């Protein structure tokens, strides 16, 4: 039975860090190995696309070249940028994703705070209703919502994204309310009471205590919203019609029209070349998201110091 304990200890140390420094090195190594192996699963498709997006036609056809292109071939990117009309589309996409994301983050934080920190009649019922709006598959209510939007006469405008976002009915709003709800609920009552004694009002407590204590949740809500709005093609295409376009929409249009022209998958050279352009376009589409994330994940760390205020 001894080996079982030994094994358990190793696992413990991997997860929670070793007690002594010299042991730490080995376990750190295991952590890196583990993270790298798992990370590879996520990186693989990106690397695959990256490699293919730099290949020219002869590289693509050649069976000996699988990962490393024979040279830095930028034509695919040039074509992708041109097809997606990037200079124009990028700013639209930024607006379509950015504004609703900000609004959704603000509104769901307020709502989560209301549900988490106040008791009022009907709270449970409303909370369950909010969950219900999350559970009902969006595919089911989509057409009725479309009809509703057309009655409000906001189809083909930016409002189809903005209004629901302000009012906590945006893309998966309920999960953000839920995150904020559980974060705000954890704030120690003593802290809030102390602030009240100091004469802070409800609103002041919200933005002076609750918000600073929940920076990671806010960062997460904003990031998720941004990514989900950025990537939303189905709703964007039916709500915006031809008025706006986004990078993922352009990409999809290109992929669709090319699939129609050439009858979908196949190993013909034309197909492969277009696939390479699509991959270049895909990377262009998700690139800004990666940049945004690597910038904003800094706040994850910074907020650690801030939580120090909770000292009780």
């Amino acid at each position, binding site marked *: 039975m001894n080996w079982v304990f030994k094994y358990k200890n190793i696992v413990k140390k991997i997860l929670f860090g070793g007690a002594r420094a010299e042991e730490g090195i080995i376990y750190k190594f295991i952590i890196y190995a583990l993270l790298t192996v798992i990370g590879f699963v996520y990186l693989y498709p990106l690397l695959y696309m990256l490699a293919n997006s730099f290949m020219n036609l002869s590289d693509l056809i050649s069976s000996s070249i699988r990962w490393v292109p024979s040279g830095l071939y930028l034509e695919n990117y040039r074509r992708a940028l041109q097809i997606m009309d990037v200079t124009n589309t990028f700013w639209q996409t930024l607006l379509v994703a950015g504004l609703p994301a900000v609004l959704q983050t603000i509104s769901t934080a307020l709502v989560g705070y209301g549900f988490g920190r106040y008791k009022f009649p009907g709270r449970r019922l409303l909370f369950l209703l909010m969950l219900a709006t999350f559970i009902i598959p969006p595919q089911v209510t989509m057409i009725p919502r479309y009809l509703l939007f057309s009655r409000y006469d906001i189809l083909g405008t930016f409002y189809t994204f903005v209004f629901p976002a302000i009012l906590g009915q945006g893309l998966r709003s309920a999960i953000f309310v839920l995150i904020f709800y559980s974060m705000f609920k954890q704030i120690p009552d003593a802290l809030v009471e102390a602030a009240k004694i100091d004469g802070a009002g409800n609103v002041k407590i919200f933005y002076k205590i609750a918000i600073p204590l929940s920076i990671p949740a806010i960062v997460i809500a904003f990031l998720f919203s941004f990514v989900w709005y950025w990537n939303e093609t189905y709703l964007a295409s039916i709500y915006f019609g031809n008025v706006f376009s986004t990078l993922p929409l352009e990409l999809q249009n290109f992929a669709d029209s090319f699939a129609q022209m050439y009858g979908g998958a196949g190993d013909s050279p034309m197909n492969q070349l277009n696939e390479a352009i699509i991959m270049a376009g895909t990377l262009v589409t998700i690139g800004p998201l990666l940049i945004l994330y690597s910038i904003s994940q800094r706040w994850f760390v910074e907020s*650690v110091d801030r939580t120090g205020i909770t000292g009780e």
Partner: protein
Amino acid sequence: MIKKIKSYYNKKTRNIFTGYLFIFPWLVGFLLFTLWPMIYSFYLGFFDVRLTPRGIRTSYQGFENFTEAIFSDPVLLENVFEYLQQIILHVPVIIVFSLIIALLINQDIKGQGFYRTIFFLPVIILSGPVIEQLMAQEATTIPGIGDYTLFNIIDNIDWTIMEWISDLFEEIIMVLWFSGVQILIFLAGLQKIDNSTREAAMIDGASAWEMFWKITLPAVKPLIIVNVIYTVIDISTFDLNPIIIYIREQMFNVFTGFGYSSALGWLYFILISSILIISVIILNIREAW
């Protein structure tokens, strides 16, 4: 005395009022944008709905759509079975896995930013057109699984084992892809844990193991529930979920139509809700235990 009571009630009503004020945006949005689509789609479940060029034509059917779905739709039943299997297998694994990853990347390691960015990839890739692009390319399943020599060796030994292993492999990779959001939610929760509590526990001689169970786990516990809810709903409403695909097929199917797909949607809603209720009960029993 009366004054005190009065001020107490004033304070209480003011608190109630403030609570409503905070959720007010949601309430308005719900009434304006969500309530009617929900009611309308539920209502359509009782009708035979035809989308014609001249508009929507409906004829009342009573519970026929619902009874047909439950009692005489073998395809649906098959899909439900597959779906339940997915839920039972994947949800616990995703939760445990994402908590472990969050613990690992929360540690003080070099290249933290790099690893955190990698673990954000599934969030970006799983939503939007990229995933369909990749699935079409089979890039999400580490394609050429069969091409790898390792698997060729296994292939030579026994075909069924090979199939089993690659199935398992695919399942694991599936789980990995569906864990992105959960990892970050846990990570945000772990950030909130007060360092001074940990230091105090360490001084008191608590081991890392004890600290996990006594400090970390209770702190992320509410987020476990959040993540279970998210995971169940995410798996259930993902565009490539078998039931969702089926519902969407029925939507534009000439023989069944929109009414039938609405009825399916609401039955599915009941199914998902029951799963969520059961999971929350299980989590709470664990707490008492």
